[in-house]
C-alpha cells in the first residue's frame, strides 16, 4: 500500500487532470477551490507539508494551486 503522502498526491493530481482541459488559467483556481472545499484540515496540513518538502510528484498546475491555497489558508492547530 502506498504511503499517506502518496495517496494525497495521487488524489490532488486526479483533480488536476479533470481541470487540465480547461486551460491553465481556469485550472489553477479550480483545483485550489476544490481542495479547499473538500479536504479536511489534516489532509490539507499533510499536503502542505509535502509541498514544503519539495512537492515531489505534483503536476505543475496542482503545485501552483496548492502554493496559492496555502497562502490564503489558516488551519487550526492539530490538537
Amino acid at each position: 500500500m502506498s504511503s499517506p503522502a502518496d495517496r494525497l498526491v495521487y488524489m490532488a493530481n486526479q483533480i488536476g487532470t479533470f481541470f487540465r482541459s480547461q486551460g491553465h488559467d481556469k485550472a489553477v483556481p479550480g483545483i485550489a477551490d476544490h481542495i479547499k472545499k473538500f479536504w479536511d484540515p489534516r489532509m490539507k496540513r499533510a499536503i502542505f507539508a509535502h509541498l514544503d518538502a519539495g512537492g515531489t510528484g505534483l503536476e505543475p498546475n496542482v503545485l501552483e494551486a496548492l502554493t496559492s491555497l496555502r497562502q490564503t489558508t489558516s488551519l487550526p492547530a492539530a490538537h
Partner: protein
Amino acid sequence: MSLIEEIDYGTPRSKSETMVTLTIDGNEVTVPEGTSIMRAAMDAGHQIPKLCATDMVDAFGSCRLCVVEIEGRAGTPASCTTPVMNGLVVHTQSERLKKLRKGVMELYISDHPLDCLTCGANGDCELQDMAGAVGLRDVRYGYEGENHVFAKSHGEINAAWMPKDESNPYFTYDPSKCIVCSRCVRACEEVQGTFALTISGRGFDSRVSPGMSESFLGSECVSCGACVQACPTATLTEKSVIEIGQPEHSVVTTCAYCGVGCTFKAEMRGEEVVRMVPYKDGKANRGHSCVKGRFAWGYTNHKERILNPMIRERIEDPWREVSWDEAFSFAAARMRGIQKKYGRDAIGGITSSRCTNEETYLVQKLIRAGFGNNNVDTCARVCHSPTGYGLSVTFGTSAGTQDFDSVENTDVAMIIGANPASAHPVFASRLKKRLRQGAKLIVVDPRRTEMVESPHVKALHLPLLPGTNVAVVTALAHVIVTEGLVNEAFVRERCDWSEFEEWAAFVAQPKHSPEATAILTGVDPQTLREAARVYATGGNGAIYYGLGVTEHSQGSTTVIAIANLAMATGNIGRPGVGVNPLRGQNNVQGSCDMGSFPHELPGYRHIAGDAVREQFEAMWDVKLNPEPGLRIPNMFDAAIEGTFMGLYVQGEDILQSDPNTKHVVAALSAMECVIVHDLFLNETANYAHVFLPGSSFLEKDGTFTNAERRIQRVRKVMSPKNGMADWEVTIALAKAMGFEMNYRHPSEIMDEIAALTPTFAGVSYAKLEELGSVQWPCNEKAPEGTPVMHIDGFVRGKGKFIVTEYVATDERTGPRFPLLLTTGRILSQYNVGAQTRRTENVVWHAEDRLEIHPHDAELRGVRDGDWVRLQSRAGETTLRAEITDRVSPGVVYTTFHHPDTQANVITTDYSDWATNCPEYKVTAVQISPSNGPSDWQKSYDEQARHSRRIAPAEAAE
C-alpha cells in the same frame, strides 16, 4: 384506525380533458371522455356488479356480470367495455339485468368450492361479495358435472382438477378456486410488464398458467404481487393471510428498500403485520410494488435480530449484554477519551441511507455540534456523491429533475449504467409501460440487462467497455454538435453561451467522434450515431442513470457530461425529459439532503459559509467548525495513520459495502471505539466495541425522501422491539456525551429542519398528512412542492457547460489481470443483503455468481456452475460461474449481496477524482478454476464467527 378500503372504479382513469355528461340511474354524471360506464357509475356512487374488471388493468369484458341497459340501444352491453357518450341514459338495475346476473353467478358458483368459512379470502372475496350483491340464493346445477373443484369425481381421477402451486414462498395459486377472469394475466402484462402468465386452453379447459405450464417459481414470474392484488378470489392469496387471517386495520407507510419509495398500506392485526399492499394513491408507485417491499419484510422479526445493547473491551472478546444506560456511558466515555488523547477531530460518524431524514439529521447534528467536528459522511459517498457534485456545478442543485410520472410523457428514454428492472423495479414497470406505447429506449451498459431483454421492447444497446462512460457520452455530444442537432434556442436562452461554444468546440474535435473512440469503448460507431440522433430529435428525451455512471474514477465527469447532453438538446425543464439519478437505497436522497456530507450543512450549503453556519450555531447554541471533515475513504486512511480512532455507524455495513475490504478491516481494527447501531450483527459489527440495537421502519415515525425528491411519511405500526426508535438512541448517546437534544416526536425534528433549510421551509408533518407527500423545494414559492425542476431557468441561473475529457482509469487490464470485472445487483436482493438474506427471497438468489462470456470461460476451462477463483490486484475470492453472453468477451460481472462472496475483497481503492466515490465498476481481474473458498474467505469466516459470540447472561443477583 380502521382498514383503509380503496375504491375500485373498475376501469382505469381516462386522461382526456374533454368532458362528457350522461345520466345513470337518474343522476347526471360528468366524466372525461373515454371513461367506461362502469367507472362513471362508480363516480356517482353506484357500484355495478363486476368480476373481470378492476381499475388497475384495462377492461376485458368476459364475465358479463356488469351488464346495463341503455335507453335506445338493444341488448345489455357490458358497462366495463362500453365508453360513455353525451346524453346516454343508463340503468344499472332492472328485472332483466337481475336475472342475467343471477344466471352468471349461478354458473360461476356451480364450479367453485363452497368452503367459504375456512377459505383464506373469507371476508375479502369479490366472488362472495357478488353472490351477495346479485341476491344469489340457490344454485340449480350440482357438482356432478364437469368441474375444477374436486380431485376425483365419480371415483375417477378428475383431469380438470389441478393441485395447489405453493412454489412461490409468499403466495399460493389454488386453481380450484379460479374463475378465469384473466385479471392476473392482464396485471402481469400491463402493470408489471413481465408477461409471465397466460390463459391456456379454451372454454371449460382454459386455465391460468405461469409460462409454459410451469410452477410460479420456475416461470418468468418476478413475484411482484400484482396478480395477487388483481385476483378477485382466493386463487392467488398471500400465504401470510392464509396463515394469520384478514387484517383489521391498516396504516399508510413507505417501503424501506429502494429509492423508488413505494407507498404501502401495512395491513395489521394488532401489532402483527398481515401483509403489505401497495397503495394506489402512492405517487411514486401508483399502486404497484416489487417483491422486496411487498413481501420481504420478514427480516423485521428474524431470530437473528439483536434486541439488547452490547459492549466489549476488545473485539476479540465475546459480546456482553448490558442495559441501555451502561452501553451509552461506555460508548460516551470511550469517544470522549479518544478526543482527549488524539484531539477533537479523532472521532466521527456515518449516517444511514436506510434511516429516516430525522434520524440522519440528528446524527449529523450530534457530530457537528456534539463531537465538535465535521467528520460525518454517508454511504451515498460510495454510490451517488458524484451526482451531487456533477449536477450542482452544471444545474445548481444536486438532485434528479423529474417526478416518476414524467416518464408517461417521455418519447426517448436513455438509461446509462443502471438496471432498473433489477434495482428500481417499479420505476422499470412504469417505463416499460411507456415503451410498449411506442417510446424508444437506448441502453448504455456493458451488459445486456433485463431492460434490453424485456418483452415487447426494442432497445438500442451500446455495450461499452467498463470505464469508458465519458468517452461514450462525449461521443454522443460530438454527433449532436457536428450533425447540427443542438437545440440552439434553448441553449441561447437558458445557458451561458460562451461556455457552450467552448464546450461545443471541444466535443466537435475529431478525436471525440464515435469512430475515433470506438477502439477504447468497443461501441459500434453507427449504433452510437443512431442513438445520438434518436435522443436529440425523437421528442421528449429523458436520461436515467445509476451507479454504473457514478462508481468510476471519472464518475463526476460522466454526470457532468450527461448534464451537458441534456442542456444541448433542450431536454430539461418540462415533463417527459430531464436528468434522473436512480438512487440505490430508500433514503439516499434524504441522507444527502440532511447534511450528511462532511463539507455541507443540510440543504447542500457549504460549512465554510459564515451566514449559513451562524444560523445553525444560533439554533444549536454551539460554535461550529468551519473546516470540512473527513470523507469515508479519508476516515479509513486516517485510522490506519493513527489520527482517527472512534466511529459511530448508524444503519450501514461499511465493511461489506465499501471497496477493498482488507483496507477497511485494517482501518476498523485500528480504531479504539467503533459503535454499530443496526438491526443485526452485521459485518462491520465484527470490529465493533459497542452494539446499539436498531429499530425497523415498521417501528418508528419519520420521513424518507425518494429519488424524485419526494418526502413521504414512514409510520409506526408497532412498538420498537428493541425498546427505542433509532432517533431516541441517538439522542440518548448525545446526552451521555454531554450534548442535549430535546425532541418529543420526529415531527419536531422536521420543524427544525424546515426552519433551517430554505428548500424544506414549507415541509411539516401536517402538510404531509394533508397532501400525502411533497417534492422539495417546498417553500413559499412552491407551497405544494416541485415535481419538475428548472422549469423557467436553472437553479444556478444559467446552465453551465463544462468540458469533459476522457481519462482512462489507472485500473488497467494487463497480462496478469486481463478481464474487467463490473458489479451490479439483482431484483430479489438488496444492497449488502442484510435484510433480504433474512427473508424467503433467498430462493431466488442463494449466492452471488460470476457471469462470464462463453469464449472467456472456454479459454480458462470453466464450465457453468464451476467454482472459480477471482483475483485482482487487491485480493481474491471464489464463487461459482454462470456462463452467459449477456456480458461481452473480456468483461465479467457479479453481484455483491452475500458476505461469503466478499466481492469487495477484489475491488480496489481507486476513486472518483472529485468525491472519492469508489470505483466499484471497473476492476482488472483474472479467473481460474478453483475447488472452493479461498484462504481469505475461510479466515474471514473464522474471525466473523469468533467475533459474533455473545456471552451467556450472568445470573441476576
